[in-house]
């Protein structure tokens, strides 16, 4: 601790704090126990006058580090906003007077609570520094777009139009991707009645005319290293040459591969050339060039065309796609219109026709009006006959098995994302090898997922593997409904059908959004600011090399693959990849990782300064480490809505349960706490942890505490982890109060002094 830190504590007596609490006693605690140089009380700290009081002390140099003992850190943030000043807040309003009953009986325990929170804030501030940020020096603002299909081209154009340079790397010899093979596209403009020109030529022309865009064809990424603002990428070409380039962020628009219809022999695939997929039909329309559509077998005119929806999709059958590809209903309508126009009659067999929105429904109606027959039925078989094909199906309306004759059958098969290597499978296999046991329980979602032979797309030199982690069914999507672009690799944004199945319009919109995220990543890196969800955070982790045992836990557990290893297995932090959750800090067994304003000390000192009553007082103490994203707001709202909970708990917010270092738990037990509760977000398949794995890792780590408890002869109930949600405003107080009954049952800790 350097001497230039000057501490000031400001104790608010507004909002009933003055009436419910003894502020003089708090002042004494702050100066005596908290060793604050300046301690001031104010009747209304968040109003202009109260804030000015603090500002004056800061301006005069009398105070450099501020403790605010008032409302929750989530309240009145606009009033208590002091630039470049370290600040700790003691939550006396929501956390004390609002969560405790009023009245003489509760007065003593309420006051003890408040005094402890003042002590804790004073302890915390001593170990806090103002984060200085770690801006990327010489930030590259150039954006790399991988993939030259519609998504990639759109991302590139939109990025360039915002004033940024872009390079497109496309593995084939031309731009355009799948869309280049299309005759038309689903309409994107009102009144959504007719197929529109695909627009691909215009897109390519726009790319060629845009001075900010450079295109590399027949090229792929052979190596990607670095971090947002400073990605070092090797671009290899077919001829074998490579070029090293620096980029600020990456948009991954690698699209999809058509599902292989050879998996569908029951639908006639491979048995007759007159059974085609949507891409095959597109080629026939193109070949017809406005004339009649000809059957591939013998060139006769296709008079009856049947479209089979959901072919090999929405099915749990092995080899099928478990999902809906989203665009195929609209695509079949568009293709059926072409068939009708060419003089054929078109029938669409579907189980649920999915034409969402205003555009979708208008186009569906247009299809009906131009004479396309829509029939609700599930196709069981397509049988090649002598002259034509027999489509056997269950007519769901008439509830009967029936059949149709067709000259041409179009199977609406789906999209398989080009998401590269599934790094989670690799990691699981490695674990399996390392542990010599099946990794089974983790469930890497491989079952029933159609995989195509893959090569890595990004060839990331990251410690955790060469590509972006995948979500369900192989899509490189974000797991978050509210935050669709939160990939688990900062500065790399999958977009278009590699992210989720989608049609062209969706892909273009998605690609525009991804372009924004890429630009944002670059601008954030240049200032040293964290990306979502701690957007703008300037703190970043650093480690003390001399203490490090090279155990690699931090590099393995980082949910964002932000930490690499050097040759000696020391961690190499990449702050612009880091999301500041502190999972590395929680993982570290020797506690050498810390942030300027969040560390083993900022929390550890708080829990140690709490006054632990001796065993004769019969006042237990329970430490709650609460996730600041969900559990802590729920606790605040419990106070706001008058839910009361035990006065014996002391709550410390943490960035994520993943940041909880076991030393806090053992320190608490050794200091005489009677129990420790961890409250974090839901884990598992539908996890709600904002840092992906934090909650799960905390559960895992705590499960290992049981051993320690046994050796200390402590009951396993002394340390519990709960999954809670931000809506558990009534449930969390119940959890707390139930836990106090448990403590009563098992008795106070034997470790009181």
């Amino acid at each position: 601790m350097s001497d230039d830190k000057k501490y000031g504590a400001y104790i608010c007596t507004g909002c009933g704090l003055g009436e419910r609490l003894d502020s003089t006693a708090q002042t004494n605690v702050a100066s005596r126990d908290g060793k604050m140089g300046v301690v001031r009380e104010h009747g209304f700290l968040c109003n202009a006058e109260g804030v000015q009081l603090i500002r004056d002390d800061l301006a005069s140099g009398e105070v450099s580090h501020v403790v605010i003992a008032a409302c929750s850190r989530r309240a009145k943030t606009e009033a208590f906003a002091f630039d470049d000043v370290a600040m700790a807040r003691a939550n006396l309003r929501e956390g004390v007077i609002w969560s405790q009953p009023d009245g003489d009986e509760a007065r003593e325990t309420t006051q003890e609570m408040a005094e402890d929170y003042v002590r804790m804030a004073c302890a915390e501030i001593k170990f806090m520094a103002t984060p200085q940020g770690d801006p990327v020096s010489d930030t590259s603002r150039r954006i790399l777009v991988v993939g030259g299909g519609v998504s990639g081209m759109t991302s590139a154009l939109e990025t360039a139009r915002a004033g940024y340079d872009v390079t497109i790397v496309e593995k084939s010899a031309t731009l355009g991707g799948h869309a280049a093979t299309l005759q038309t596209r689903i309409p994107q403009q009102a009144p959504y009645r007719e197929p529109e020109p695909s627009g691909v030529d215009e897109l390519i022309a726009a790319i060629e005319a845009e001075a900010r865009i450079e295109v590399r064809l027949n090229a792929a990424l052979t190596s990607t290293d670095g971090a947002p603002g400073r990605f070092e990428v090797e671009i290899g070409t077919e001829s074998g040459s490579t070029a090293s380039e620096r980029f600020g962020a990456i948009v991954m628009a690698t699209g999809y591969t058509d599902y292989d219809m050879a998996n569908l022999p029951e639908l006639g695939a491979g048995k007759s050339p007159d059974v085609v997929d949507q891409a095959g039909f597109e080629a026939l329309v193109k070949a017809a060039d406005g004339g009649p559509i000809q059957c591939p077998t013998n060139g006769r005119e296709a008079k009856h065309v049947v479209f089979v929806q959901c072919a090999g999709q929405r099915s749990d059958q092995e080899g099928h796609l478990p999902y809906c590809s989203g665009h195929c209903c609209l695509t079949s309508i568009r293709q059926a219109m072409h068939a009708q126009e060419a003089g054929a009659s078109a029938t669409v067999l579907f189980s649920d026709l999915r034409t969402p929105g205003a555009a979708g429904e208008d186009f569906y109606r247009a299809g009906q009006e131009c004479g396309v027959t829509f029939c609700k039925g599930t196709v069981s078989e397509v049988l090649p006959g002598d002259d034509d094909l027999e489509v056997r199906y269950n007519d769901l309306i008439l509830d009967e098995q029936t059949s149709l004759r067709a000259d041409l059958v179009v199977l609406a098969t789906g999209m398989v994302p080009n998401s590269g290597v599934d790094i989670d499978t690799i990691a699981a296999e490695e674990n399996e090898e390392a542990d010599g046991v099946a990794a089974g329980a983790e469930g890497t979602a491989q079952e029933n997922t159609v995989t195509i032979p893959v090569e890595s797309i990004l060839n990331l030199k990251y410690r955790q593997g060469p590509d972006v982690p995948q979500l369900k069914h192989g899509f490189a999507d974000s797991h978050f409904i509210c935050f669709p672009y939160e990939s688990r690799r900062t500065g790399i944004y999958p977009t278009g059908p590699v992210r989720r199945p989608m049609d062209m319009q969706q892909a273009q919109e998605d690609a525009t959004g991804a372009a924004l995220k890429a630009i944002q990543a670059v601008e954030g890196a240049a200032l040293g600011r964290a990306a979502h969800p701690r957007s703008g955070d300037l703190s970043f982790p650093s480690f003390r090399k001399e203490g490090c045992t090279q155990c690699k836990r931090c590099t393995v557990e980082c949910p964002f693959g932000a930490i690499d290893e050097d040759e000696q297995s020391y961690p190499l932090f990449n702050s612009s990849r880091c999301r500041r959750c502190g999972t590395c800090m929680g993982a570290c067994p020797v506690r050498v990782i810390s942030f300027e304003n969040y560390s083993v000390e900022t929390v550890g000192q708080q829990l140690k300064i709490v006054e632990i009553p001796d065993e004769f007082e019969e006042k237990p103490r329970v430490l709650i480490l609460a996730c600041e994203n969900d559990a802590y707001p729920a606790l605040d709202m419990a106070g706001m809505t008058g839910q009361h909970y035990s006065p014996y708990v002391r709550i410390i917010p943490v960035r994520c349960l993943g940041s909880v270092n076991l030393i806090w738990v053992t320190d608490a037990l050794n200091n005489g706490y009677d129990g420790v509760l961890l409250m974090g977000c839901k884990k598992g398949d539908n996890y709600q942890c904002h840092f992906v794995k934090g909650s799960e890792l905390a559960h895992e780590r705590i499960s290992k505490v049981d051993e320690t408890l046994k050796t200390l002869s402590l009951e396993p109930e002394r340390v519990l982890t709960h999954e809670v949600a931000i809506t558990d405003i009534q449930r969390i107080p119940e959890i707390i109060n139930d836990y106090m009954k448990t403590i009563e049952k098992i008795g106070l800790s034997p470790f009181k002094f």
Partner: protein
Amino acid sequence: MTDVVATNQTILVVGGGISGLTAALEAAECGKQVILVEKGPSVGGRVTQLYKYFPKLCFPTCGLEINLRRLKANRNLRVLTMAEVTAIDGEAGDYRVAVKLAPRHVNDNCTACGDCADAVEAEFDNEFDFGMGQRKGAYLPFNMAWPQRYVLDPRLIGTPDADKAKAACKADAIDLDMVEETVEMKVGAVIWATGWKPYDAGKIQPYGHGRFTNVVTNMEFERMLDPFGPTDGKIVRPSDGKAPTNIAFIQCAGSRDRNHLEHCSRICCMASLKQTTYVREQFADDVTSTIYYIDIRAIDRIDDFYRDVQADPNVKFIKSKVANITEDRDSHGLLLHGVDTEGYHRYSNPHDLVVLATGMEPSVPAGQVPGPVTGDEHGFVAADGAIFGAGCASEALDVNRAVQNATAAALRAIQVVNRVAATESRDV
């Protein structure tokens, strides 16, 4: 007088729901100056009225908390609540905008202590609960409302309650003399993200919403699940407050229908599937759900959610557009009449709670936007016009897609202000 600093390099976002919040935050986090204008007293919008999101069954306020933290931390973003844009003149890069600010009668001294709410007596229908419950005349719209400041209902002004509220406030936050004002500002780009409103179920005459007590909309059903909502979190029959036994969900209520909304609102199938999980969560095997549908649109990779619900033995699917509903006046039980198109059977099925899956219509139809927008015949605002439509103002979208769409809109706005910046630096 409210002072708003803005230039033609400022981005104006109209609407503080999840789309508007997202567009504003994403642009601000790119370093742009943003003004967010919200008509209501707090940000968060329609999603704050929902219990859970499909398909993860997670809670909307979880994402809101993150967005609020982003908002609080970002100095580039200025939020005006109870503010309505009344005029937008000019062109991209150079707009003049008029914003009408309604009086909140509570200034920023407010600490949200709640003393004013305790002091006043008058209660009004709670719009947050679609009038299913009452709220005080001085109120915080919901637990996570931000700005965390109370509101005085304008109907209180001039009544003794207003004086009681003022007297109760120790923070000197209540200003009964606050009046409506209009501020004018210059901005470079405008994102129109005014969202959606539920289609008026009363217009679907044969379904009896408003006449039959036990016919509710899907949004009203959502409000029942809020522990702080009108039924304390319980699914009940409004007629007697008791648990239902046999719930019907009617899909496309007023959607995909030439007499009502022609479009498909995209979300309602998933919303009803999701709501059957609420029923299971609350009643286990004791209550059945029946979904009357035309097509189940569980689009793209969330189709497995549909299959999971299909596997629930307590959920039945009937392919039918329900013709009409009749009510037994004594028991308030309901009979749904129609034809099951799978096999063509006529039915008259009894249910004791009916949930109408009503669709979305734009809150502000394109024709009523006070500025240069491109609209379609359904009233949606084009995403790529002079003013950028975003979220459900531009198309019926689920949350995930609305956020995606709003992020794209933010970039379109940035392109405009970056162009302005480039031109101005050239001119200097």
